[in-house]
């Protein structure tokens, strides 16, 4: 047993590892296609973006081994410390960070830069797992709910201030984890209603929404009055209270949208909601990406044959818009295959998470499933024109070392935890 335990690869889930390498490989192929230029064709140039990505991918193997070298216990024991280090690195950006494209999200180390927000996800997932696995933990209690919320709040607010609201949005993924671990259902219901009201307010204006929601609540009141007289006597005050809160929410959505958001944020939402159709300027990215994907057809144009990819006019194609290359060059067959791969990958994580005996491992696994899910959903949703333009990477596909390493850390800590599932802690 001892010798087995000393073998750092003992007990790891090779299916997940295989998924990882397959996804990374497909991702690199497409980065290559999106960034290769005329004069470099046939060469491997390590200073180009696809070349750098090879280095990052290569370096991820020592990183994985490094992750495996620690006992699973280590991650549970030092979760809080890793979380604090991560928060410190985020806060440190405001002093030492390097401003790239208007956001101070990077530490510059000369030959390479690191983006701490990509690693903060893993630290937050560890901290959350630690909190939830505590024996005192009860999500029905208000105190606990606040604690859980605070764990998410700190990294999210630090990232928002960089400002990188897209990356901060990923922390909403934890709502699935908390729900899984017993958060009352009405939290999710309220979130859902809030999102609905948010969209309706932006689409139809706050006055219409106020009137509309008032009528809806009136209908509910009438319904209770006629059919459930008993419930009505107790419930009508509550319903009025809910309406007042909703009204306040609608007002603040309008206020935030018109007075806090910058025009570029508003534009992004307006395009998505179909209120603006200026495809030449604001909606350019989305229009280009959708057109590019659509031009792929059923079978795609083939590797390096995507004329729009090669024409280099989907902006940031190798990072946030990498999926367009898949869509154009590999067609419906290729792009739906990638989606299926992601679905299977995520289901595998959940399956493994559910089989954990340790609550810590389960919560962590569930957290990373939710994080990957959020990334994939938002990124592909944006690229195929179903969600607003929110710049977050597609896991394993998008160009960039920090993102790749961040996702690698996220996944392989879980594989390490899982490898220990049969042992007592």
């Amino acid at each position, binding site marked *: 047993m001892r010798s087995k335990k000393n073998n750092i690869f003992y007990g790891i889930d090779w299916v997940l590892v295989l998924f990882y390498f397959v996804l990374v490989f497909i991702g690199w192929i497409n980065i290559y296609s999106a960034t290769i230029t005329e004069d470099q064709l046939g060469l491997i140039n390590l200073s180009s973006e696809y070349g750098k990505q090879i280095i990052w991918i290569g370096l991820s193997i020592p990183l994985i081994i490094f992750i495996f070298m620690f006992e699973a216990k280590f991650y549970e024991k030092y979760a809080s410390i890793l979380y604090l280090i991560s928060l410190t690195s985020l806060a440190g950006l405001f002093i030492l960070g390097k401003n790239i494209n208007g956001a101070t999200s990077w530490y510059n180390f000369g030959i390479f830069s690191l983006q701490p927000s990509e690693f903060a996800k893993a630290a937050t997932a560890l901290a959350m797992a630690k909190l939830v696995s505590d024996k005192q933990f009860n999500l029905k209690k208000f105190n606990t709910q606040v604690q859980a919320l605070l764990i998410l709040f700190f990294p999210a607010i630090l990232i928002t201030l960089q400002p990188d609201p897209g990356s901060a949005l990923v922390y909403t993924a934890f709502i699935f984890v908390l729900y899984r671990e017993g958060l009352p259902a009405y939290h999710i219901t309220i979130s859902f209603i809030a999102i609905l009201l948010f969209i309706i307010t932006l689409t139809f204006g706050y006055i219409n929404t106020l009137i509309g929601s008032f009528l809806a609540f009136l209908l509910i009141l009438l319904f209770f009055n006629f059919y459930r007289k008993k419930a009505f006597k107790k419930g009508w005050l509550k319903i009025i209270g809910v309406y007042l809160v909703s009204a306040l929410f609608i007002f603040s959505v309008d206020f935030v949208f018109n007075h806090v958001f910058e025009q570029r944020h508003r534009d992004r939402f307006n395009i998505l909601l179909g209120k603006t159709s200026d495809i030449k300027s604001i909606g350019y990215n989305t229009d280009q990406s*959708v*057109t590019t994907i659509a031009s792929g057809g059923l079978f795609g144009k083939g590797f390096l044959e995507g004329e729009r990819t090669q024409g280099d006019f989907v902006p940031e194609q190798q990072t946030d818009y990498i999926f367009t290359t898949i869509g154009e060059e590999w067609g419906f067959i290729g792009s739906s295959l990638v989606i299926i791969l*992601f679905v299977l990958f995520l289901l595998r994580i959940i399956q493994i998470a559910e089989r954990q005996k340790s609550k810590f491992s389960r919560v962590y696994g569930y957290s990373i499933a939710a994080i990957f*899910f959020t990334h994939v959903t938002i990124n592909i949703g944006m690229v195929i024109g179903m969600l607003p333009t929110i710049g977050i990477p597609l896991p394993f596909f998008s160009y960039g070392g920090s993102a790749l390493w961040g996702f690698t850390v996220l996944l392989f800590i879980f594989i390490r935890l899982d490898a220990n599932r049969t042992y007592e802690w």
Partner: protein
Amino acid sequence: MKRPGLLSFLIIFIGIAYIIRLFYLQVIDNSYNIPTLNNSAVKITYDYPERGYIYDRNGILLVANQLSYDIMIIPREVKPLDTVEFCSLLKITKEDFIKKYTKAVHYSTRIPSTFVQQLSKNDFAFLQEKMHKFRGFYIQKRSLRQYPIKSAPNVLGYISEVNERMIEKNPYYQLGELIGTAGVEKTYEDDLRGTKGVKYIQRNRFNKEIGPYKNGIYDTLAIPGNDISLTIDTKLQQYGEALMANKRGGIVAIEPSSGEILALVSTPTYDPNLMVGRERSKNFTKLYLDSISKPLFDRGLQAQYPPGSPFKIFTALAALQEKAIDTHTSVKCFGGYKYGSGKNAFMKCHCGTYGSPVELNKAIYRSCNSYFANAYKRIIEKHATPYEGMNAWNKHAESFGLGNYLNNDLSVGKKGLIPDGDYYNRYYPNGRWRASTTISNSIGQGEVLTTPIQLANLTATVANRGFYFTPHIVKKIKGKEIDKKYTVPNYTTIDKKYFEPVIEGLFDVFENPKGTASWSRVKGIEICGKTGTAENPHGQDHSIFIAFAPKDNPKIAIAVFVENGYWGSRWAGPIATLMIEKYLNGETSRPWEEERMLNGSLQDEYDKQLKEITEIEE
């Protein structure tokens, strides 16, 4: 649903939703497969067809084409270049270069836009050999307008570069392309223009052109524009322009039996060739800013004035139809007409009949104000209230196409004004107005306003004895019938039988020795007409004349309007009759009269006004 299942459910749900969306985008929806301008891998080139020629009614070529060469730019393909040499080849300054370049970049870095327009043939020949040095620039061949005959610029109009507002309205056009913006060029833009051909050329990833995109299935051939024949008689048009030289005003001549406009003169005129070539915008600005003689203002279509005496024709017809008078109704005129009890309620008359009874015929050829004021008053008072009377009168006038746009194929027009009961109710809210309040309408003064083309149409309607064809400028479009609305007669509310006595009166304007135009009689042509003077509170009165001929089976109806031309018989009358002679006989029998008109100038009159204006401004 059990709690652990929610996330798995969502993963599968989103996966399926996205695959469905991808299936829709990539397999079902074909709209994305058509190359768009944003697609840099596909280069779009246009093949501009030749714009249609314009001929007159007798096949004389009025508008043709000449080749022109534009320098186009695709900013993203521009490589560093020798700007000094380039600028000197194009004859522009470095500042121009920077300005034009910035503008093109602002429009689009991918889509071609015009860099320098309309090079001369020499510049082109010179530049063509050196063009390969300037990457991102190329020469686009285009055809430009050319006018073999320097005539009728107001009719022909001109083409100019589309602006961004037009592009928004009509996506057919791209920045730098040309569109008809005035005259026939504007109203028949779609026919003249044809349809540009589009070629999609596939480039490989290194920007090299490798042949037609998708084997050319989206390519279209250019469809040439259609030639158009106008209703204009060029000889008559040019003659009219010559007669109107150094005089401001308009002539509209119509063929009554078809509504075809034979001549549409507006002076001062200009050489249509000024609106072509690189000097175009400079010339245009000069013409446009000339607020004194307003050469771009089509006086035949846009000048609204009180019509004066020719309007009496209508008063007579309306009164006959309303049975307010008959041909034997007589009025005694003592130098004017007292229409109310007040001291000032008196309309002067210079008919010179001094109390002898005036019947309809004499009233017309002597142009007696008293007679028509009386007839007008009777029309209004035949009805229960002045309001109803006014409306009845208005209905008749509108049936002649007065007080509204003629709804034809001319690019500009004015409504004029024919008041109705509501109009006066607005001015006299207490309703205290009567026939006598509005009596000036009877003689074409007061509130009534008409344009020369409306007057010409009124004349044509009388010539036709009760109907008119909507006046129009295009006779034939190659391969296309002209609009049916021009071949359907519009009937007035006046019965045919009432026209004959009025026409007799108009005939006697020339034939009776005491007629107001008896000295303008033309041997061998039976002309019917009416002189007029439009009072001008700002200066010398305007001279007006309407006429048609021959009396039976009329071939031409004409309205002439000369600004500050004193009175009708002084300028407008001779010009109208000379035009009629020219059209019917080909030459005049009164060379001395022709000479007087060709050389006559009202420039002194206009200079005097200009002086007054500047003095006031000072």
